[in-house]
């Protein structure tokens, strides 16, 4: 299971904060209009992980979420389903049942989400359990405790173990970028996770205030690009937390498209994790058709 740390660390070159943030900001000036806007709105739905991660989640809540995921707008069947629903392991059975045969995947957080601070065997059991329940995708958290103490071998070994526990399920590694302390570290954590076997790297748990931002995603996208260049491996990216408006969503699409290329603009390689984004996207689609942004009671609250 041991991974050599030489290669990923050699790719973990420094990142200039000011210039990175300026570049991200300049990409937000892309003006997305008419046909591009409609395509962007549809794509953001197709790439969405519709999420509920609350202690209060119940089978009923999950059923409601799944229905929304399968058919986001009952009045307009041209609106595509989302990529996946994202739930806690205990909710996976209900989500699997509700989405069976629809093409909507089930993603489960696992591995002592959101801190990751449990014994490794417990975390691996958590992953295996979610996979056994039928989850197609597993979102684990990076061991920030090990990362911040510089124990990169441990970080990588744990990701590799999680990947093995996933079996055929896709592994997304949440870096929790808001806790890493800067873009240099975000790039380093990205490189380590990718080298250790992550299929996706993901920004945030959504459980702390500092969630996904455009510069963070740009930084991770540049890491993915350099990893692909060095190894030939194509890794996906998931932005999650704090994404609430359609405009934010297409800013992410622009950043991904202009950094990694349009090959990455598919649900296989890009995801937007969100709980409240979908309704704004639906209302923006409605505005394209009618010229009016409808009120909150014209979209369903799930």
């Amino acid at each position, binding site marked *: 299971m041991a991974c050599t740390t030489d290669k990923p660390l050699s790719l973990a070159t420094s990142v*200039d904060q000011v*210039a990175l943030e300026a570049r991200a900001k300049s990409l937000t000036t*892309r003006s997305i209009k008419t046909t591009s806007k409609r395509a962007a709105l549809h794509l953001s739905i197709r790439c969405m992980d519709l999420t509920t991660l609350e202690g209060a989640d119940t089978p009923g809540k999950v059923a409601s979420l799944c229905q929304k995921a399968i058919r986001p707008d009952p009045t307009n069947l041209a609106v595509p389903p989302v990529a996946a629903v994202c739930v806690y392991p205990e909710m996976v059975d209900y989500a699997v049942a509700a989405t069976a045969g629809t093409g909507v995947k089930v993603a489960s957080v696992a591995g002592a989400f959101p801190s990751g601070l449990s014994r490794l065997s417990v975390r691996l059991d958590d992953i295996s359990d979610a996979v056994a329940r039928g989850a197609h995708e597993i979102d684990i958290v990076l061991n920030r405790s090990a990362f911040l103490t510089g124990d990169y071998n441990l970080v990588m070994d744990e990701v590799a173990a999680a990947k093995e526990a996933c079996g055929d399920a896709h592994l997304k590694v949440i870096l929790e970028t808001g806790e890493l302390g800067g873009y240099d570290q975000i790039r380093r954590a990205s490189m380590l996770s990718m080298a250790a076997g992550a299929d996706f790297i993901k920004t945030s748990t959504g459980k702390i205030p500092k969630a996904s931002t455009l510069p963070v995603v740009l930084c991770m996208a540049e890491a993915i690009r350099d990893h692909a260049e060095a190894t030939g491996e194509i890794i996906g990216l998931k932005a999650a937390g704090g994404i609430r408006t359609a405009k934010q969503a297409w800013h992410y699409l622009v950043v991904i498209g202009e950094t990694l290329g349009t090959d990455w603009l598919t649900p296989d390689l890009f995801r937007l994790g969100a709980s409240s984004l979908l309704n704004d996207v639906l209302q923006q689609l409605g505005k394209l058709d009618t010229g009016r942004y409808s009120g909150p009671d014209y979209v369903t609250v799930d």
Partner: protein
Amino acid sequence: MTTEKFDLDYAPALESTAVVNIAKQYGLFVNGEFVKARGGKTFATINPATEAHLADVAEASKADVNKAVKAARHAYETYWRDMPGKQRARYLYRIARQLQERAREFAVLETLDGGKPITESRDFDLPQAAAHFFYHAGWADKLDYAFPGRKVTSHGVVGQITPWNFPMMMAAWKLAPALATGNTVVFKPAETTPLTALLLAEVLQDVDLPPGVVNIVTGAGATGQALVDHPDVDKLAFTGSTGVGKMIQRAAAARRLPLTLELGGKAAHIVFDDAAIDQAVEGVVKGIFFNQGHVCCAGSRLLVQESIAEMFIEKLKRRVDLLRVGNPLDKNTDVGAINSAAQLGRIADLVDAGVNEGAEIYQPDCTLNKKGFWFAPTIFTGVQQSHRIAQEEIFGPVLSVQTFRTADEALQKANNTPFGLSAGVWTEKGSKILWMADRLNAGVVWANTYNQFDPASPFGGYKESGFGREGGMQGLSAYVRTDTGGRS
């Protein structure tokens, strides 16, 4: 299910031109009024992106320039010289606020007349122009503090000539300090981009600037020559090509006229192997393709450390492939039109020279419009120090890439041109930045960034890039005399 694909061919997002009202004909702005040129001579100004005719503009003759200088002299003696600084400041503040209020109108006109992308005129040129007026308005009543212990006076009538690359911003760089310090002005904008200066004249009328304090004479070389040779001009300021700058310096030297020159450049980006690579790539791209490379301080040479050269050049090419060349009014355009047919010819000549001298050319696959003046973003690799494209200013979207082994070699190559305007250093090591900045023969050195401007920060060059500074107290000092002991 969805059928439309989201890709990077963004749907057109055109800025509306309804906000500008271009007259058929423009006169000269002399003594607060628009007047015809003597003999009614005019020249056409066109949109370089479409070659569409925009307006006919009066061409000032020697006699017209004389009238303008007389008006400026009269205004100097009657209103402006003895007006308290606080009161002059009010006019400058008013101009600044008007520029902000009418920013969109100015930005669209700048793009129509000059060919630069609307995002640049909107987000860079106009905010910078307004900022310069605001900044210098603040100095107008504080000159005693700017030059402590010395009594300062104004020069009198200042002749100013500006280029076509940043018409409004250059007008602000020139006019604001001259007016703040109590000078009156005869101002000549470039002949390919006169319209925003003439719109500025309207603003000057609207803010009730006393007649003759600013006079705007439009025309080409002969008009400029008449201004430079006029015996009643007390100071000259020129921004433009090194060739014209030398002619002006000869004329000024003969009359011992105070002069500031901001001329060409051949700036080098120096990228060390410990730089933040992706951000350096971005900075290099912005540094040369900003405003189609029509920038005196454009980073037109890239010196990259040999150990990372191959990777860096690959990244550079991939980034350049993404540049969107096209309609300057489209908000998603990155690279607009070349300013004029003549400039396009000069760029093409030097690029031919680069190919003939053996450098390897790279241009992204982009379709250029048939109408208008266009040049694809160009990267030359394998450039040697003796190539013309490593020595001469191209003033277009063309980057010459060279490599170096050590900091000493980078320094030597960076300094080894007749110019000395600006440079960019890219490294994560602060001590290396300081070591380079100390030794680079350039008026401005940017570290891990490029093309950053602020009215408080002096800008200007060494060697054939000119002398004198614009911005900050250093820029202000070019417009005052400290040698009169209080007597004018």
